[in-house]
């Protein structure tokens, strides 16, 4: 297992602006990346969870999210659908930290902000061509290649799984036009970008179940990162509050502060129990969409309320961009904006369990 304690205190700092490559390089330098490679070890997912947990507890939420995107869906799809040559071509550099991956799961092309042409994939000659743009994509810019899963224009029941290098002249990468977020997110735009024959991994019809299986693992790891970040921030804030003098006493001698810590601890423990239960179930059989959505809803809420509560206890210090709490706060606020919104999650739960 990756020993979270072996990561140095300064591992995975979250700078004001963030590039997924930073996290990748550091993970490779720390020697932990290879242990999370599913090809190497059956316990890779356990290692990955431990890595994510260690990074999260240090407040490096954005770095953890980047590595999750790198190490889950692209690795799983290349392993499942790629031939030996493709696996060697892409997984080797990815696991050595030489190439950063992202995944574009375009199962619902009509979604996303207005003004974006949704990504479409069509067959042309004896290959495939991508067109359109995918906003809010993790590890963009920074990613060297993307694993794309998209339905075919002329037969949406079939999805194409392909790998495409992102440094082609007909592909544009743009970071989100805001310095409010520490997450490595941006937009990938394709202008009739041709996927070479060597980049096609395969075609599937049961795309929903494929995306659910791999997507659920990724989403649950996002939850782990967010919750671990909240746990780490709560511990750090508790240490601060104990040491913070208040006249002859300490900040924790205030009953209202103790109760605030109790409330935040309850939020975290409750979310942790659900996440652990769902992750345990995930080892035996894939949890359903509703249960994953419940976990995401509860853990993200616990993470945001905890980091917000910590910032409050830290007062002015927590309001400074240099402080890791503020970075965690900023990143936690983005969780629902970048990943599934509360409304989407509630809709999934309502449709499956309440209708």
């Amino acid at each position, binding site marked *: 297992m990756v020993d979270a304690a072996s990561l140095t205190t300064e591992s995975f700092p979250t700078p004001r602006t963030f590039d997924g490559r930073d996290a990748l390089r550091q993970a490779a330098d720390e020697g932990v990346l290879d242990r999370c490679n599913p090809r190497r070890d059956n316990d890779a997912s356990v290692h990955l969870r431990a890595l994510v947990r260690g990074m999260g507890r240090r407040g490096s939420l954005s770095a953890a999210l980047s590595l999750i995107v790198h190490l889950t869906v692209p690795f799983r799809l290349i392993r499942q659908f790629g031939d030996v040559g493709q696996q060697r071509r892409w997984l080797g550099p990815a696991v050595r930290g030489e190439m950063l991956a992202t995944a574009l799961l375009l199962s619902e092309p009509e979604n996303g902000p207005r003004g974006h042409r949704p990504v479409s994939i069509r067959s042309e000659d004896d290959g495939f061509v991508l067109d359109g743009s995918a906003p809010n994509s993790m590890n963009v810019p920074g990613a060297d290649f993307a694993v794309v899963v998209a339905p075919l224009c002329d037969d949406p029941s079939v999805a194409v799984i392909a790998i495409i290098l992102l440094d082609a002249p007909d592909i544009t990468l743009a970071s989100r036009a805001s310095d409010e977020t520490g997450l490595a997110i941006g937009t990938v735009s394709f202008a009739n970008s041709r996927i070479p024959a060597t980049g096609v991994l395969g075609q599937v019809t049961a795309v929903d179940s494929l995306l659910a299986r791999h997507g659920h693992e990724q989403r649950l790891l996002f939850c782990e990162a967010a919750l671990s970040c909240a746990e780490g921030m709560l511990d750090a804030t508790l240490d601060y509050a104990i040491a913070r003098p208040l006249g002859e006493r300490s900040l924790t001698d205030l009953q209202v502060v*103790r109760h605030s810590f109790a*409330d935040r601890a*309850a939020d975290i423990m409750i979310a942790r129990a659900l996440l652990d239960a769902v992750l345990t179930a995930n080892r035996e059989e894939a949890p359903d969409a509703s249960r994953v959505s419940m976990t995401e809803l509860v853990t993200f809420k616990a993470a945001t309320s905890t980091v917000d509560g910590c910032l409050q206890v830290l007062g002015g210090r927590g309001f400074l961009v240099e402080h890791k709490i503020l970075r965690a706060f900023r990143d936690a606020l983005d969780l629902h904006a970048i990943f599934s919104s509360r409304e989407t999650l509630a809709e999934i739960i309502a449709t499956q369990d*309440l209708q």
Partner: protein
Amino acid sequence: MSTRTARDERLTIFREQVRAFTTAELVPRLPHWEALRSLPPEAYRLLADAGLTGLQVPRPLGGAGRDIRFSAVVTEELSRGGATAPCTSLLAISNTVCPLLATHGSDAQQKRWLGPIIRGACIASIAVTEPAGGSDLARSVQTRARATGDGWVLNGEKLFITNAPVADVLLVLARTHGTSGLLGMTLFVVPTACDGVSVMRLDKLGLHASPTGTVRLRNCHVPTKALLGVVDRGYFHVAALLEQERLLAAIAAPAIARACIELALDANPGLRRSAVALHQLAVMLAQAEAGRAFAWSLVETMRRGDANTTGIALAKAALGDFSRRVSATCRELGSVTEGPATAALERMARDTRAISVFAGSSETMRELAGTRIVAAARRKRASFSVA
């Protein structure tokens, strides 16, 4: 089949049995018991016949020899069925009185009281809380027991005592030494027919089908053999069970919340056409699932013999308050027409209010947990400093 799988299988079968019993035997009688403002003796016999009163009592003593998980299943199923009040009365017997008699009772006490209680022939109650305070027993217990040559004389008053108005016997916690502190309190087995014992029923906001009362003890003389457990150690006998009571309250809360969500949809089918209402219910459902996972993780911890006082306190406070909010919201969303679902929602909203109050209020639980969290962090800092 592995041992673990077999155990889980037993739990699943037991859950199905309890659910069927709740649906067939308890739910139809609830309106009548509510109207009575009590739980009649036949209800206690019904619970005993179902094997629920002596659930955690060892088999040689006439019980079922089950662990805390089975009590959690009973709590969950009765709560989900809306039978929170009978559940409250049952747990006072099955998880407080019976374990105390089974663990600390003499052979004579077990023969005289434990057997009949398990069979439902005798109704019992534990009298701990007093008017001077709530769960802070170290300061609040003022009822005194004075030793005489042939026994003890008890004087004092007990408040909010579940089952007291219908009880045949009480387990009374009284101070035998000093005026405060955890040491110096002793448990006594006191039949309600004793001279000097008077019980008065209390009317409450909810939990109508669980009788609650005050107990007055005026020069109540009991023989030496009425002593239960070790003199001056009564608090410690009770304290371990208090934690279990809080944990079972935390188990009840998400079950009630889930039941309220389902009842709201039954009572007002129009909610299914409102995205806003459905989303509200979906978020509450997710929180109920998470709360349930947390409470059950604590049950497993307790079953292994580990105490998680902080976790239990947080669970009781957070989940108790949560179920209160959910039941109130569902009552608002569902109460558009008269009918059984609406009536059940209203009853559950009233009953649920008690969870944040009894066995240590939410504020007391937050204080307990918050203090322990800070103390643990201080210890960790101190150990780092030494290192």
